[in-house]
């Protein structure tokens, strides 16, 4: 992640471990204190204190709900996934070892919940072959000739929102993970089990598609 205190180890497992040993419950007080979640609060929640867990929910609900809403684009599903994320957190909070910031760990847990839901819905999260072999219309040369492009000035927010919504699912996912959520390509590759090159390629294609959609929109507006 690019935000402060948001360092994620590239080797952090995508699927959070379940049922780890008691030793895993020893939380680094200093690390958790540095995340904005008081170590004492975290320890209480890990020990099964419901009030402490409720406080952790209050501290993180906005961020996790917003993440789910952005990724799914639907309030009902976002609520459902937020609930699932906090249920997972309740089950797994004892396995948090303070190796990364708690907020980063929780964010990653929520991303996994989102990805699981998308997979369940039968969504192909990434198209490996297509991403590595540009189709005719996606070859680099198509970006030439920007003479008819009028993306100068403010970008139409509604048009951009629509263009993002209309992106193919795999492109949208990588665009959201990288450009909105701030994950690096190595982290995305880890989450989606694809290569770093693939992640870069799909992000680039997503951005080009958005640009093309905005070009079409601005040409329509100019008529």
């Amino acid at each position: 992640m690019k935000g402060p205190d948001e360092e994620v180890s590239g080797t952090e497992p995508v699927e959070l471990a379940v049922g780890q040993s008691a030793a895993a419950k020893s939380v680094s007080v200093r690390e958790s204190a540095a995340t904005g979640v008081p170590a004492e609060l975290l320890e209480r929640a890990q020990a099964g204190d419901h009030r402490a867990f409720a406080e952790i929910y209050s501290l993180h609900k906005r961020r996790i709900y917003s993440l789910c809403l952005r990724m799914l684009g639907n309030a009902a599903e976002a609520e459902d996934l937020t609930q699932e994320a906090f249920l997972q957190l309740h089950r797994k909070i004892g396995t948090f070892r303070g190796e990364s910031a708690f907020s980063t760990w929780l964010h990653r847990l929520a991303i996994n919940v989102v990805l699981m839901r998308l997979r369940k819905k039968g969504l192909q999260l990434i198209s490996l072959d297509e991403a590595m072999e540009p189709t005719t219309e996606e070859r680099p040369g198509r970006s030439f000739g920007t003479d008819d492009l009028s993306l100068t000035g403010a970008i139409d927010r509604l048009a951009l929102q629509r263009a993002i919504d209309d992106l193919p699912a795999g492109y949208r996912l990588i665009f959201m993970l990288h450009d909105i959520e701030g994950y690096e390509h190595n982290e995305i590759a880890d989450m989606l089990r694809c290569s770093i090159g693939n992640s870069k390629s799909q992000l680039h294609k997503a951005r080009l598609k958005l640009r093309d959609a905005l070009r079409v929109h601005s040409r329509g507006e100019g008529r």
Partner: protein
Amino acid sequence: MSEVPKSMSCAEFQAQLPDLIGSGESVGEHPHVKECDLCRELLEQLEAIAHAARQLFPEVEPPDELWEHIKSAIKEDEGGKDQPST
């Protein structure tokens, strides 16, 4: 930034663009961008789109009743754990 031939075409540059953007280096300093208006414009537009997209998704508060649902789900989950396994 690695040395590139001055005669790099737009197609060659754009083929490298995903890697360049993902490298963390300043693509605006790339020799081709400095001498090519089209590719510079393309790069600026892609950056403007990414910037604008980040403004589209502010953080929002979940509905108040969500916590009640979560509490119920946790309670149910804990109750399930207490059940003897068959």
